[in-house]
Structures are given as structure tokens and as C-alpha cells.
């Protein structure tokens, strides 16, 4: 049984599905959904279009929120990993290192150049807004944690999922790494559930979350 950062016995957790967005390529469970090598905004739009989701709000979001929306989208498809779970029992654990700094910079640039604070930009200058946008999109009322770390911290993600599943009574957790800054974006998301046949493997996940291919 895999454990996070403690020696206490913990219940098994099962990963049902994984999406990866890296270098303009977006895939779910190893199957490529979109590939693009333009600029970041172009790449994000291309990946979103491939999701074939009707959401007028998408073009209004900041980049962090777009990336999170893309990374989670396949889970909510008709045959997706979360399709059978009640919306108020789906939790979220989203970790990154720059948080909202992509938008923070845009907001600050405008503030310094024009002495004007944009309300439309300011509302996105918190790391958890992307998680908020995801919850609005899919009607998710469950628990959620926005975590920050220098790099993907697999034991911490493990412990966070354990808490959301067993202490906050979530049935499934969208858990992953999402980071966007200085023209570069990457996300690795999983759907995690409690289950007798656990398949959470710290070493395997370190590899998946940290590969830059």
C-alpha cells in the first residue's frame, strides 16, 4: 500500500484517468486529443476547441483558468471518468508554483503604466480562482484545496486526496498540477477515488508529473 508522507496506515487510492497538457500537446490516458505549436494563447484555444464544449465563458477567463478547464474537460465528457459521480461529491486539489502570477503581472503592468487597476484582471489575481471557475462550470459544490509548491509534491497530493476522500467525504477528487507563467504552460490532472484495489504509486507519479517530453 502506497503511503504519502507518514508511517500511519492509509486506505488505498485508485487513479481512474489522467490528462496531460505539455508543450502544446494534450492527451487523456495516453491518447492524443490536440497538438499545437503556436503561441500559448493559440495552443490553449486549439486544445479547448478539441474538447467540443459549449462554454461562452471560456474566452473571458484568464490563462490559468483556461488551462485548468482544459485539463479537467475530458473527465466530464459523457463517457468521462467523473460522469457517474454526484457533483457535490467531487473534490479538487490543484497545485502549482506560480499561482496566479501570469495575471498578477498583467494587472500590475497596467497599474504601473496607466495608474489604472482593472477589476476584470484583479478578480483573477488569486491562485484558487481557476479552481473556482472549474467549480462554476461543472456545478461542483464539494471540497477543494489550492496548494502551492516549488514542484509537484506527490506525497502532499496523496495526503490531500486522502483528506478530501476520507475526512471531507468526497467520492472522487480531481487532483493535479497546473502551472502557467512566462509563456509556458503545463498540467497533469488525475481523477482519484478511494478503492480496495489501489494503484497510486509515488515513483510512477513522480515520473509522470515531472517528465518534460
Amino acid at each position, binding site marked *: 500500500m502506497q503511503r504519502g508522507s507518514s508511517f500511519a496506515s492509509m486506505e488505498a487510492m485508485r487513479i481512474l484517468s489522467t490528462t496531460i497538457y505539455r508543450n502544446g500537446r494534450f492527451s487523456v490516458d495516453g491518447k492524443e486529443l490536440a497538438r499545437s505549436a503556436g503561441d500559448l494563447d493559440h495552443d490553449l484555444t486549439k486544445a479547448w476547441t478539441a474538447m467540443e464544449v459549449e462554454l*461562452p465563458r471560456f*474566452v473571458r477567463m484568464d490563462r490559468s483558468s483556461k488551462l485548468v478547464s482544459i485539463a479537467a474537460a475530458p473527465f466530464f465528457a459523457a463517457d468521462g471518468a467523473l460522469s457517474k459521480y454526484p457533483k457535490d461529491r467531487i473534490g479538487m486539489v490543484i497545485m502549482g508554483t506560480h499561482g496566479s502570477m501570469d495575471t498578477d503581472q498583467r494587472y500590475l503592468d497596467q497599474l504601473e503604466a496607466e495608474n*489604472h487597476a*482593472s*477589476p*476584470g484582471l484583479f478578480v483573477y489575481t488569486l491562485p484558487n480562482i481557476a479552481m473556482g471557475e472549474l467549480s462554476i462550470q461543472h456545478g461542483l459544490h464539494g471540497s477543494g484545496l489550492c496548494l502551492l509548491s516549488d514542484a509537484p509534491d506527490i506525497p502532499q497530493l496523496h495526503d490531500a486526496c486522502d483528506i478530501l476522500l476520507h475526512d471531507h467525504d468526497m467520492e472522487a477528487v480531481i487532483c493535479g498540477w497546473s502551472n502557467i507563467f512566462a509563456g509556458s504552460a503545463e498540467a497533469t490532472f488525475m481523477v482519484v477515488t478511494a478503492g480496495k484495489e489501489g494503484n497510486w504509486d509515488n515513483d510512477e507519479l513522480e515520473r509522470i508529473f515531472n517528465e518534460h517530453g
Partner: protein
Amino acid sequence: MSTDSITTLRQDLKAQIISHLNLEGRTVESIADDMPLFDEGLGLDSIDVLELIVLMDKHYGVRIADPKQGREVFQSVATMADHIQANR
């Protein structure tokens, strides 16, 4: 005010709204003069009201002191144009 200049003001407003609120993919032609700006229609929200208040002030010199007043003024491009004409 002549019909032409009313039309010009409305068209100008539509272009300003699209640019100021970053409404990617929206064209001036796709916004009808009396299309509701909020909820169904253009889908703007309370944060957009605050941005539109800034737009009114900076671009048209018309001040709206209270955001709550904003909802009435920003019903549609037509009501925005009327407010500008009445107050500038």
C-alpha cells in the same frame, strides 16, 4: 441628435465594448442595439459593469458614481448610448 450620429455612437460603443472587455470572436454586427448585455444576450456580469463604468468615464467622459446605478444604464447598447447623449 441626427440618426446618423446616433448610429455612429452605437457602432463605436459596440467596438469599444468588444475591445475593452476582450470579447474574443465577437463582431460589431453580432451585437444588436437592444440586445441584453447581461445574462442571456452578451453574458456580461457585475465585474464587467465596473469595467464599463471605467469605459464610460475614460472614453466618453460620463461618470457613473454608483455601480448599482450601472445595471440600468448598461441594459443594452441603446440604453448606454442614450445615457451618453443625455450626460455628456
